[in-house]
C-alpha cells in the first residue's frame, strides 16, 4: 500500500484538484450501478448548495436594492478597504511564501545541527490564532511594553522623541501574518520537495548543476503548484481575518463589513461589500490556477531514491539553523513566552473546572466539525470521481466558497437560514422547532467556513489513486460503495487524517462565528479569550490563551509526525550524529 507519499501529496493540492485528470479517467469506466451513482450525485449537489447557502444568501442581498449607503462608502472609505485588503493579502501571501519555501527547502535539502527538531517545530505556528499573536505582540512592542520601556530607560529618551516601528499598522499585520501563516506554505512545499524533487534533483546534480541552479531551475518549478496553493491559502486566511486587523486598526473588507452592517445599520451595503470580497477571492483562486500553469506533474516512478542531504560549511550550518529558527521564534516561541509572562504576572488562573469546561467545549466542536467536514468532503470528491461532469465540479467549488468569508458574515448567513427553517418548521409541525442557537448551527457555520480545507485534501488524495484499481474492483463485481470502502478508504487514510487535523485546528481557533451563534452557557476557549481581551484585560486572557495553544498543539504534532514518516525509507547517513 502506497501510503508513504499520501500525506505529502494530499496537501500538495490542498485547494481543489486536477479534475481534468479525474474526468478523463472516470469517463472510461462509468459502468457503476446507476442508482448509487445518482444518489451520490444528487446528494452531493444538495449538500454543496446547503453548505454554500449562508454565503449565497449574503451574496444575493445586493440585488435587494440599495439604500444610499453604498454611495457613501464609495465616496469615503471603499478605496481604503480595497487597498488595505489587497496589500494585506498580497503582502502576507508573499511573506509567508518566502518563509515557507525557504525553510522547506533548507530543512529538506541541507544537513545541519538541529534540523530534525526544526523540521517539526516549524509547524507550530499553526496552533497560534492570529488574534492571539496580535494581542501578544502589541503588549510586547507597544510604547508601554517592555521593549520600548527598556529602550527608553537605556537611552533616556521620552516617548515620541524617537521612531519605533508601529506594530499596530498594516505593515505590522503583514509581518505577523507572514510569520504565523507560513506553515501552510511550508507544509505544502516540503511535501512537494519530498515527493517530487528527489529523482529530478539527482538528475540535475548529475548533469552538473550547482545547488542554487537546481533550486531555481528544478525545485521551484516542480514546487510551483504547492507554493501557489499555499500562498492562496494564506491570502484567503488574511482576507477573512477580523480579530487581528480590528485590533490593529487596519481597515479591510472584513472590518468594513462589520462596521457597515452593524454601525451604519445597512445589511444591504454590507452584503455588497461581501460580494466585493468574494470578487477578490475569486481573483485569488484564478491567480492560483494560472500560476500553476498548464503543466501537470505526475509520478513516473515509485522508486525511492536515497538522497543524502547536502553538507554545509560550519558558517553556513549556523546560517541555515538561524534561518529556520527565526520563524519558529517569531511565530510561536516569543508570543508563547509573552503569554506565559502575562499569565504569571496577572496571578490570575481560571479555576481548573472552568478551564476544563471551556477546553471540553472547544474540543467537542472541533472534533464534531472535523468529522463532518471529512465525511462531506469525501462525498463531494467521490462524486466528482464517479460523475465527472461540470455540475459535480461546480458543486465542489461552490461548497468551498466560505473559506475567505469572515466568520461573522457566515454566522449571520447561518442565522438567517436557520431562522427561516425554524419558522417554516414550526408552521409545518405546529410545534416549537428549533435549530438556531444549537450546536447544529455552529457545525453548519464551521462546515461552510472550513470545508474547502478537507475537500482539497481528499480530492487530491482520490485523484492520485489509479483508476485501474477501480476498474479491477468493478471487474470483480464490486459496486462504487464497496470500492470506496475496500479500496479507496484504506488508501486515503493519511489524507483523511490530515483533513481531520487541519479542520480541527481551524475550528479550535475560530472566534467570530462561535461568538455569535453558540448556545446558552456555552463558552469555548476562544470565546473566553475574547471576553477578557475585549474588556481590556489582556493578562487575564493569557491563561486560556495558553490552553488553546496547548490543545491545538496535539493535532499539529501528529501532522508533523505524519510528515516525518512520509518517507521512512530515506537514509540520512549523516544524521546519526545530530
Amino acid at each position, binding site marked *: 500500500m502506497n501510503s508513504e507519499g499520501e500525506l505529502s501529496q494530499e496537501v500538495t493540492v490542498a485547494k481543489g484538484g486536477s479534475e481534468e485528470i479525474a474526468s478523463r479517467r472516470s469517463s472510461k469506466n462509468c459502468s457503476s450501478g446507476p442508482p448509487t451513482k445518482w444518489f451520490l450525485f444528487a446528494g452531493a449537489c444538495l449538500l454543496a448548495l446547503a453548505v454554500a447557502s449562508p454565503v449565497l444568501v449574503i451574496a444575493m442581498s445586493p440585488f435587494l436594492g440599495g439604500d444610499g449607503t453604498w454611495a457613501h462608502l464609495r465616496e469615503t472609505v471603499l478605496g481604503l478597504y480595497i487597498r488595505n485588503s489587497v496589500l494585506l493579502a498580497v503582502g502576507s501571501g508573499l511573506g509567508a511564501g518566502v518563509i515557507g519555501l525557504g525553510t522547506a527547502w533548507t530543512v529538506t535539502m541541507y544537513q545541519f545541527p538541529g534540523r530534525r527538531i526544526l523540521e517539526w517545530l516549524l509547524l507550530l505556528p499553526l496552533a497560534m490564532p492570529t488574534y492571539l499573536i496580535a494581542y501578544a505582540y502589541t503588549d510586547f512592542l507597544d510604547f508601554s511594553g517592555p521593549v520600548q520601556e527598556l529602550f527608553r530607560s537605556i537611552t533616556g529618551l521620552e516617548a515620541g522623541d524617537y521612531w519605533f516601528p508601529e506594530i499596530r499598522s498594516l505593515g505590522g499585520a503583514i509581518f505577523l501574518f507572514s510569520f504565523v501563516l507560513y506553515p501552510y506554505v511550508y507544509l505544502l512545499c516540503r511535501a512537494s520537495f519530498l515527493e517530487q524533487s528527489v529523482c529530478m534533483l539527482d538528475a540535475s546534480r548529475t548533469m552538473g548543476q550547482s545547488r542554487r541552479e537546481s533550486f531555481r531551475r528544478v525545485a521551484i518549478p516542480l514546487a510551483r503548484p504547492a507554493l501557489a496553493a499555499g500562498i492562496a491559502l494564506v491570502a484567503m486566511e488574511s482576507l477573512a481575518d477580523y480579530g487581528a486587523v480590528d485590533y490593529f486598526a487596519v481597515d479591510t473588507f472584513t472590518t468594513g463589513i462589520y*462596521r457597515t452592517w452593524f454601525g451604519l445599520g445597512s445589511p444591504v451595503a454590507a452584503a455588497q461589500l461581501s460580494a466585493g470580497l468574494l470578487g477578490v477571492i475569486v481573483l485569488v483562486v484564478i491567480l492560483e490556477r494560472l500560476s500553476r500553469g498548464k503543466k501537470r506533474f505526475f509520478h513516473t516512478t515509485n522508486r525511492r531514491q536515497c538522497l543524502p542531504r547536502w553538507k554545509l560549511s560550519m558558517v553556513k550550518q549556523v546560517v541555515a539553523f538561524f534561518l529556520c529558527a527565526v520563524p519558529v521564534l517569531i511565530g510561536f516561541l516569543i508570543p508563547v513566552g509573552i503569554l506565559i509572562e502575562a499569565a504569571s504576572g496577572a496571578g490570575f488562573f481560571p479555576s481548573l473546572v472552568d478551564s476544563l469546561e471551556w477546553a471540553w467545549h472547544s474540543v467537542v466542536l472541533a472534533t464534531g466539525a472535523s468529522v463532518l467536514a471529512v465525511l462531506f468532503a469525501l462525498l463531494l470528491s467521490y462524486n466528482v470521481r464517479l460523475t465527472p461532469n461540470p455540475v459535480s465540479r461546480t458543486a465542489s467549488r461552490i461548497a468551498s466558497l466560505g473559506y475567505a468569508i469572515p466568520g461573522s458574515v457566515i454566522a449571520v448567513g447561518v442565522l438567517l437560514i436557520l431562522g427561516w427553517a425554524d419558522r417554516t418548521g414550526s408552521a409545518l409541525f405546529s410545534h416549537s422547532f*428549533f435549530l438556531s442557537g444549537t*450546536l447544529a448551527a455552529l457545525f453548519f457555520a464551521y462546515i461552510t467556513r472550513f470545508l474547502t480545507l478537507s475537500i482539497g485534501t481528499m480530492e487530491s488524495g482520490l485523484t492520485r489513486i489509479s483508476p485501474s484499481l477501480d476498474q479491477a474492483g468493478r471487474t470483480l463485481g464490486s459496486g462504487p460503495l464497496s470500492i470506496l470502502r475496500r479500496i479507496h478508504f484504506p488508501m486515503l487514510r493519511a489524507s483523511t487524517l490530515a483533513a481531520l487535523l487541519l479542520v480541527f485546528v481551524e475550528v479550535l481557533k475560530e472566534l467570530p462565528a462561535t461568538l455569535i451563534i453558540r448556545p446558552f452557557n456555552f463558552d469555548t476557549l476562544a470565546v473566553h479569550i475574547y471576553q477578557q481581551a475585549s474588556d481590556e484585560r489582556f493578562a487575564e486572557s493569557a491563561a486560556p490563551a495558553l490552553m488553546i495553544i496547548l490543545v491545538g498543539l496535539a493535532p499539529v504534532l501528529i501532522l508533523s509526525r505524519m510528515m516525518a514518516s512520509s518517507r521512512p525509507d530515506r537514509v540520512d547517513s549523516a544524521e546519526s550524529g545530530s
Partner: protein
Amino acid sequence: MKLKTIFIPTLLLSALVLEAAEVNLYTARHYPGDDELYEAFEEQTGIEVNVVDGKGDALLERIKAEGENSPADVFMTVDAGRLWAAEQAGVFAPVESEVLIASIPAEFRDPENLWFGVTKRARAIFYAKDRVDPEELSTYQALTGPEWEDRILIRSSSNVYNQSLLGMMIAEQGSEEAQDWAAGMVENFARKPQSNDTGQIRAVAAGLGDVAIANHYYFARLMLSDDPEDQEVVEKVAIFFPNQGEGEGGTHVNISGAGLVKGAPHPEEAILFLEFLASPEAQAILAQGNAEFPVNPEAEVPEVLESFEFVEDKTPASEIGANNPESIRIFDRVGWR
C-alpha cells in the same frame, strides 16, 4: 461510532426548550461582577439565568434572525445606541412595572418602557498632570483648538462609545457642527486612532499625547489595580469631567441597559430579572464589579467613584441612539478611522 453517543444527546438537549424556571439572557456585558449577579438572582428567586454573551450588535442580529422563535427573554447592551437599534428593529416588548419606574430615573429608561438603563458610564477627559493644567480644559468642543495640535488620544470610531459621543453632539448642535468638531479632532490627533480606552490612558502616562478621551471605569480599574505599572499610570494621569459650565450640557453619559424581548418564552421570569437588576442590591454588585455608576439613586456608589462628581448631559439615550448611523457617516467623511 463513539462520537454519536456524545453528540446526539447534546444536540437534543440544547434543542429542547426546557420548562424549568429559567430566564434566557443575551448580553453584551462581560464584566467580572456579572456572574456574581446571576448567582444572586438564582439564590433569591430560584430562577436560573442562561447566558450568551457577545458583541451587542451581533447578538441583536441573532435575535432578529431567530424571529419569533428566539429563546431570548432579556437583551442587555452596554450602549444606548444598541438599545435604540433594538427598539427600532421591534425586538423589545413594553414592560409595565411599578418597581422599575420607581427605581430608575426617567432619563435612563425608554418613555414607552421598552428598555431600562442599568448602569451609567461617563466619557471623560484624561490629562497628563505634568504637561496639562486642568485650567486649560473645559469642554469636548474646546479640544479642537489649535493649542491641542498633536496632543489628543482617542480610539477608533468603530467603537460605540465614540459613536454615542458624536451622536450626542449631533442631537445638541446638529450634524454640521458635529462634523466640524470631528474634523477638528482629527487635526489634533497625536496618532492614528488605535488601541482601547485603557490604551489611551496609558499612552497619556507614557507621553504619546497629553489628553485622552475614555470611559471613566477604565481609569477606576487602574486605580484599584495592585500592579505597580498601573499605579504609576494613576500617578501621572488625572480625570477631568468636561462641559461642567452653565449651558455646556454636561459630561456625556452612556448607559448599559436591558429590555424584555418580544415573544420571550419566559416573560414573568424576565420581568423579575429586570426588576432585580434595578434593585439596590443588584445595582451595588453591578457597579462594584466594573466601577460604574448605578442608575438607581438609592444604590451604593462604589468607593473608588466617590470623588467623581459631575453634571451629566441630559440628552435622552434614545436620541443619541437614533443618530448612530449619521455619526459613522461623519467619521467616515472626516477620516476618523
